[in-house]
């Protein structure tokens, strides 16, 4: 049985752990608020660009002479996976689940005989993938944004790299894997194809709705030229949105994880206190017995 001092030491250490986790929880909560606001602020632009894009692609019809980014390279050989995680741990299964999903995706592609290339965004992605998938990683980004505040410029740098690789025919299909921020309690790994471009169901529906006045749309300059500029923009926006979603998700996941840790620490302190008191009582009883039996012997 541990001595009284050992119990006391353990209780003190769990208490200070509890202090740390509850502080981290509060920090995460305030950062979450900020991250959520930023994710919300990017909504109007995302919506507007999706609207324009839907209209332009719709007016182009099903023709196959569009830009490569829209119709693809005509091949399906090399896949580029962009894996977005956080830079830091201590946020529950946030990074682990995502990387697991990415690994699954990569294994499936490899099993189908495709070539796989991976871009890691966030330090954890690289840390977790480099052991078994190191040979596929072609680029990695970490510590994005100024003090964790991601700006559009960060996404732009990544897009520049992707477009450069696409233009030099380094890959055919580009897929984004990131944690979608559903709500504070749920972040779900999401897989989204970026190149060739596919209309999301939501914006496709929007276009259906206003398809009546479709005919009257004019394009200046013509559709091809606009698309040429619009697609990289949209790519940037999708990645920017994924980064913001992931940043908000990270804080939410950390908040939940730290809340659990704080509660567990509390339980542990209660349990240890009971054990400590029991041990203390046993010690006192033992001493009393010693004194009494000592007195009786006299």
């Amino acid at each position, binding site marked *: 049985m541990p001595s009284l001092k050992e119990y006391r030491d353990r209780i003190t250490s769990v208490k200070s752990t509890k202090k740390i986790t509850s502080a981290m929880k509060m920090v995460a909560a305030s950062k979450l608020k900020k991250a959520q606001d*930023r994710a919300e*602020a*990017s909504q*109007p*632009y995302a919506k*507007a*660009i999706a*609207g*324009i894009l839907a*209209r*332009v692609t719709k007016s182009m019809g099903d023709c196959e002479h569009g830009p490569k980014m829209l119709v693809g390279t005509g091949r399906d050989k090399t896949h580029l996976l962009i894996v977005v995680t956080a830079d830091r741990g201590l946020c529950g299964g946030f990074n682990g689940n995502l990387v697991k999903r990415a690994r699954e995706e990569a294994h499936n592609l490899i099993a189908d005989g495709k070539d796989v290339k991976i871009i890691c965004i966030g330090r954890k992605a690289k840390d977790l993938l480099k052991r078994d998938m190191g040979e596929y990683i072609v680029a990695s980004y970490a510590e994005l944004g100024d003090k964790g505040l991601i*700006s*559009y410029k960060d*996404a732009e740098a990544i897009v520049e790299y992707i477009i*450069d690789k696409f233009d030099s025919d380094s890959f055919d299909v580009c897929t984004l894997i990131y944690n979608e921020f559903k709500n504070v309690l749920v972040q779900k790994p999401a897989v989204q194809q970026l190149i060739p471009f596919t209309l999301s169901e939501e914006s496709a529906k929007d276009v259906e709705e206003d398809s009546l*006045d479709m005919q*009257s*749309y*004019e*394009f*200046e*300059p013509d559709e091809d*030229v*606009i698309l040429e*500029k*619009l697609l990289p*923009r949209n790519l*940037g*926006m999708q990645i*920017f949105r994924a980064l913001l979603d992931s940043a908000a998700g990270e804080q939410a996941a950390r908040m939940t994880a730290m809340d659990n840790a704080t509660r567990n620490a509390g339980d542990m302190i209660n349990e240890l206190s009971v054990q400590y008191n029991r041990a203390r009582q046993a010690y006192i009883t033992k001493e009393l017995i010693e004194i009494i039996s000592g007195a009786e012997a006299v």
Partner: protein
Amino acid sequence: MSETEKQFNFEIVCPDRKIISDKAWQVVVPGDDGDFGVLANHSAVVSSLRAGVVTIYQEENEQCVKVFVSGGFVDVTSTNCTILADEAVNVNELKQDELEQQVQNLTEDLGMVEGDADKARVEKKLVIAKAKLSAVSGHLFV
């Protein structure tokens, strides 16, 4: 036509925030193929923008607001006009001396950088800086 029918909804949005969302009587936007004015009941147009100044008249014969955009797109329908700007700043907030310095620095940089990608990047910045400078001073810098 009543006053409200003469106005339309006008928005400037950037990737990270909404800059302006208001009613407007007329907006002049710097399209890639030349500036054009938008009034209420304009025919539906999607156009790309070059770096330049968006001029917003909230009401007829009123003072205008000038906002610099570094490029992007505009989506016009009969009741709405949405500008998707890469970057947008109010012209009043631009400082001429700072911009002159910036243009000078970038021109020097352009002579020094090597590689086509870097060169294109600096050139793009230079075009934007020069457009900003023209927006502030009212003269054309090319």
